[in-house]
């Protein structure tokens, strides 16, 4: 007769066991906030389609102090999301070779972050030039 009686440990609270898992959960949670912000922008587009009054109403909502505070928070979340996205990017790509040498994970992450910063700066510059 077998004396085997394997003991299975609980997974309750698994994500609190290691700081790595906590960072992973934050990364996943930031995706929800990014999606929420996309909905805010979508609401703006829908208001624009409904005419001037609706559009001005949406703009007025965006200028409320609570809305500005939320935007600052969402910006912080978005920055962390961007960072974590490019941090994991090398894991999702096939090995990249430049001049016969393999491109390091850090170089891929830095290139991605630099591109994100450049794109954000360009968007900001365009918005600044087009301001009323």
């Amino acid at each position, binding site marked *: 007769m077998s004396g085997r009686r394997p003991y299975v*440990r609980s*997974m309750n609270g698994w*994500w609190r066991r290691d700081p790595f898992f906590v960072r992973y959960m934050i990364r996943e949670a930031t995706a929800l906030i990014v999606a929420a912000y996309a909905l805010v922008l979508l609401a703006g587009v829908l208001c624009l389609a409904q005419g001037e009054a609706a559009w001005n109403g949406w703009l007025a909502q965006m200028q409320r102090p609570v809305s500005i505070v939320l935007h600052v928070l969402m910006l912080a979340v978005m920055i962390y999301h961007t960072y974590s996205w490019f941090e994991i990017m090398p894991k999702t790509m096939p090995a990249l070779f430049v001049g016969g040498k393999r491109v390091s994970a850090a170089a891929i992450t830095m290139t991605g972050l630099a591109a994100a910063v450049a794109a954000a700066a360009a968007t900001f510059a365009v918005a600044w030039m087009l301001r009323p």
Partner: protein
Amino acid sequence: MSEAGKVIEIEVLRYRPEQDAAPVTQMFRVPFTDDMSVLQGLQYIKDHLDGTLSFRWSCRMAICGSCGMMIDGKPKLSCKTFLREFYPAGLRVEALAHFPIERDLVAGVDDFIVKLESIKPYLIPKESRRLEQGEYLQTPHELEQYEQFSSCINCMLCYAACPQYGLDSKFTGPGVLALLHRYNADSRDGGRDERMQLVNAEEGVWSCTAVGYCSEVCPKAVDPANAVNLNKVESAKDYFLRFVRKQ
């Protein structure tokens, strides 16, 4: 500086199925020197303090993959981790997470072995060659496509690092999928179609949520997260290309 007389406290999660209903912790005080690994600390316990302590080990040089365990909550090879890192606070050792505990620090790995066999972890030659035709040739670039994934020693630290495997052990898991990729990415291999069934399955690459801790804990820099996520692309291509591929 004298090393004599240093003693470290090792807390061991013990489980003896014939007497323990659930695992219990036991504390041992182990004299040690700076060159002693955690494995040597456990061997000291077994030789001098409690001969009933069970743990797996073989090579003592990070190549056999037997001595993986949770050391202060992190999956590590006990032969490659030194007691001095934990002095004076002490350390806690436990069987590899996400596997059932068979006894003390011995994890039940039956599930892993079944999965390892299922992916056909050997070359299935693309073209059969007779001896006089010579060896299968490969360029350095072709070698580089799979070389890092061939370093896997089946130590299962990546499974202990994978919450998706812990939550649902039907997931094929990082190590086995990395080995699967090692053969699929080999230019001499022709077994891709057979293995893609396992990649495309729900228990295949799509159970991975890119936590990425598997690659972090790998003692051989295999980067299983990379292998798994590359195969999400392969799996997606497999799905869409069937509409245009000639039968």
